[in-house]
């Protein structure tokens, strides 16, 4: 496994821990289909949340949050619908969140969580 993949996996685990501590119920992780991948599928109260996790080791190539562009956001929304169809579940509210993690060197992450970006 390459270093960037290790960082990504650690970042995703940190994001899951963080979301659970915020009261999110995690339904699925790393769900794949032909269109792409959803990092985290979760439920917060009655809202269905698709969460994109971006982990970076530094800001030389921009901050984690900047890396989620417009095309990525529209794809996440499409994937959310795909997941719901695949699992035969219905929700009144769907939301796209982004969790940006910046590696702080000692194993910890700085976490930024932005709700409702799509």
């Amino acid at each position, binding site marked *: 496994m390459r270093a960037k993949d290790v960082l990504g996996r650690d970042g995703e685990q940190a994001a899951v821990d963080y979301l659970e501590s915020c009261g999110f119920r995690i339904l699925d992780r790393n769900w794949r289909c032909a269109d792409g991948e959803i990092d985290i599928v979760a439920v917060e109260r009655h809202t269905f949340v698709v969460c994109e996790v971006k982990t970076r080791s530094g800001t030389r190539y921009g*901050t984690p*949050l*900047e890396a*989620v562009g417009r095309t990525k*956001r529209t794809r996440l929304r499409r994937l959310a619908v795909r997941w719901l169809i695949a699992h035969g579940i219905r929700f009144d509210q769907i939301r796209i969140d*982004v969790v940006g993690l910046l590696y702080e060197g000692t194993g910890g992450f700085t976490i*930024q969580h*932005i*709700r409702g*970006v799509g």
Partner: protein
Amino acid sequence: MALARTHSVALVGVEGHLVEIEADIAHGLPATILVGLPDTALREARDRIRAAIVNTGESWPQTKITVGLSPASLPKRGSGFDLAIAVAILAAADAVPLSSPAGKMFLAELGLDGRLRPVRGVLPAVVAAEPSLDTVVVAVENAAEASLVPGVRVVAAGSLQEVAMWLRGGPLPTPPAPSAQQREPGASSPKPRKLDLAEVLGQSEARLATEICAAGGHNLSLLGPPGAGKTMLAERLPTILPKLESAAALEVTSIHSVAGTLPPGAGLLTEPPFCAPHHTASKAAIVGGGSGIIRPGAASLAHRGVLFLDEAPEFGRDVLDALRQPLEAGEVIIARSAMCARFPARFTLVLAANPCPCAKASPGGAGCECSPAARRRYLGRLSGPLLDRVDVKVRLQPVNRREMLYDRKFTETSAVVAERVAAARERAARRLRDTPWRLNAEIPGAQLRGSFSPERGALRSLDRAMELGQVSARGADKIVRVAWSVADLAGIPRPGAGDVEFAIGLWLGVTR
């Protein structure tokens, strides 16, 4: 999270409009949105400002930033808003105190490294800001121009970092150099060589006509063979004009500031401008225009001065005819879909032309190869309506060596003539003191026939010329105006029959 406000100025023509710049920092993915009719250069400001803020050592807020420029309906152009937007963002991000930019105007372009760059049109912008704001922040290069406006505190800064430090309560950025010396009237634009009317030898009539035009603000046409001194005369007309009064100087300096033709570090322009566009100039170059930012043309750059069209028949006909409206109205109005720009353009027009296209020394005589038809066609390019607006027409004769030597005794220096011109203008101004006009050329026809009519019986020869069809009704008014200038120069209270006849001669172009 926070909302911060700064001010800047948008220019439409030479008029400044105060623009309020708001920066709102809200939750969301990092994005910068610029709203309020920005043009391409202003849209690029987003990337310039970001680089400038980061390279200054400040942090760029990782959130959604909305920058609004209001009034939103006013089109905003150019890079002069950079500094104001950057300061608004810094204030909204709490990098500088939120209320610190209040009551201040910011006007400068930002370099990617955070340096402040000078922009055009600072003078009219500061004039527009002066009633409501007490402090303006500009680039060092613009400081002298900004401090021409009294009652405004000018802060000249070299970089965004200096501005940020100052807003945090730090020391004032590099204090502007005392501009008293620059503000000294006449210290502006050091001329390489002083021109003088005494250098024009052998053309005593043309010199007199130039003097009359200077006294009354009349338009002049010079017709003559090459080398007779047409260009020399025209170039020396500004030297006998009085210096600009402070209001006029401010207008002229504003126009040149917007056009970007102000010499760096120069103060108020007090010399009457002289503008001599080449005959290949386009209509937009003469009256103003251009896509995007509307720029003043040569007619406006010659405001309160002289617009000299050398080789006038070589100009495009539509270019010459475009001058008819500013000649009447004293201003140019350029209409665009989104706005209407007004440039003052009250100039003295000087036309110079050769009598024929071959331009041999003596037209119709030895060496001239032009047929009468070709000659007529050449001068016919100057349209009747345009020539109808030229009050004084002089036909210059080629001078020989003996005449030049003889005339040396009679030539007067510009200083002497300027004194007479100033006295004549003073006389006219005293007569016109209860009216909005200052010069004889500005008096409308109705007043000319009413309160400012010549002596009784003085107009008899003018009536005869009108009956013969030699003079139009507009021409008759112009002749009376010139007659007033002749009388003013001579120190006579009212023009007599001789003055009117002399003016008819100047109008018709026969002084011999």
